[in-house]
């Protein structure tokens, strides 16, 4: 297959990965253009989170390759991959509960030069004023929505070219989930930050995205422009609950 190397910011090509002997991903290929919002949707346990983790080499690849900014990153350790410009907001938020909000953001800025820190902190605090209000508070005492803001804010501290988001709406009240998604749109529109999103809330995710992949049982079942998928009968029946 011929492809233009510079056209995609991230390309995942034919990867297989899993935990121990259990293979979770079968021949997954995903491409992300700069400036786009791309979503992986699908039911629980089909390998969406594993795909994101394999980008950061948190899960060992058994086959295939991952290219970011024209560099094959599949063999790099996670901290090296992150320093290439990938921000990650993990499933379940995973904020450092023993650290304050401010200290969590310091960790998010671990890979960037010190003189850029103040500017980045201001940007993130402007985006999520709630984090500024709570900056000295221990992050384990935050609400779920606030922890999600912190997880996204932490990923944004390094001003990443690509933002990976794993289930940002999980466990949140619908109004708060919508609020988070508005922020994601704002991030993408204001700075052109490319976003690769994993989401169970298919409706919300498709509305936000340009392009989407539907995953089933560790494979890509369907892919296409998000507005097209939203009107697809199969997607409507299976994921949107509209007859």
């Amino acid at each position, binding site marked *: 297959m011929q492809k233009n190397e510079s056209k995609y910011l991230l390309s995942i090509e034919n990867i297989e990965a899993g935990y121990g002997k259990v293979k979770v991903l079968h021949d997954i290929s995903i491409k992300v253009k700069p400036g786009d919002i791309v979503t992986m949707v699908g039911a629980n346990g089909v390998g969406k989170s594993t795909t994101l983790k394999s980008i950061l080499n948190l899960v060992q690849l058994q086959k295939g390759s991952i290219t970011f900014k024209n560099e094959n990153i599949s063999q790099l350790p996670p901290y090296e991959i*992150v320093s290439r410009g990938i921000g990650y907001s993990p499933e379940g938020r995973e904020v450092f509960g023993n650290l304050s909000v401010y200290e969590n953001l310091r960790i998010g800025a671990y890979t960037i030069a010190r003189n850029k820190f103040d500017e980045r902190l201001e940007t993130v605090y402007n985006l999520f004023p709630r984090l500024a209000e709570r900056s000295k508070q221990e992050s384990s005492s935050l609400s779920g929505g606030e922890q999600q803001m912190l997880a996204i804010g932490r990923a944004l501290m390094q001003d990443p070219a690509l933002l990976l988001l794993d289930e940002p709406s999980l466990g949140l009240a619908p109004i708060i989930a919508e609020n988070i998604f508005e922020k994601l749109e704002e991030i993408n529109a204001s700075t052109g930050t490319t976003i690769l999103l994993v989401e169970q809330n298919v409706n919300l995710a498709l509305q936000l995205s340009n392009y989407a992949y539907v995953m089933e049982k560790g494979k890509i079942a369907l892919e296409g422009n998000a507005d097209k998928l939203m009107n697809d009968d199969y997607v409507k029946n299976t994921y949107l609950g509209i007859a």
Partner: protein
Amino acid sequence: MNISYIIQQILNALSLGSMLALLAVGYTMIYGVLGLINFAHGEVFMIGAFTAMFALKLGLPLWLVIIAAMLASVLAGILLERFAYRPVRGSGDITLFITSLAASIGIRSLFITFLGSKSHSFPVPEYLQGIRFMGDILITDLKLFIFGFTILLTVILTILLKKTNLGIAMRGVSYNKDTAEAMGINSNSVIVATFIIGSALAALAGVAWGLQYSNVRPNMGYLPGISGFIAAVLGGIGNITGAAISGFILGVGQVLFVGFLPSSFSGYRPLFVWILLFIILFIKPSGLFKANIKWE
């Protein structure tokens, strides 16, 4: 028994408390990032003390002696991390625990093989042998020096952990190593840095021990090591300030414990540590202070 006797006993105990505090801080930091009770920490302490003894016998000045001791202990700490603990990381807490016991016994036996199990005299420089009186209370310059140095180090370390990128990264790694890696932190480097700091502190405790008791021997690390570990537990493991304060509590407590008993009981000094550990774990199993790490 009068008040100045008690004050005298407490002052006597402050240097022991300082050494235990320095050891406890090392235990607690290494436990924090690795979930490992590093039983070889007492041997790292012993290596520092022996290096200082040899350096003093060569006639080196004290500052150079301290640096030499720190270098030797840091080297031992780095080698332990790299060749004993890193290969078995991820194969369970029990494996790590047994590896550290084996490392402890192995290093001690190696020293006994080459240097014998007897005590070696530790020369104390004359300028540290000064004494002064406050009323009828006697204070040695050495004790003041050790105590002041320990307080200073604990303050510096607390600031390091609170304010610097490395300190925040250490606390991040102690909370969740995988997430820390996914945020761009090289957790191996952070773990090595922790071993370097912990081992350097153990070396300082070793030098202090030599100066205070004027002798060193290969199994000198055993009891102070266990006391330091217990101080770390009492302090709420992962909590630096808690570990330091508990080190002092243990040191002072041990001395007072035998200070108030008939002199035939003086050999029972270490018993105090176990009694205290038992009582505190019975009343408050999480330690006296707030633990700074996630229990899994």
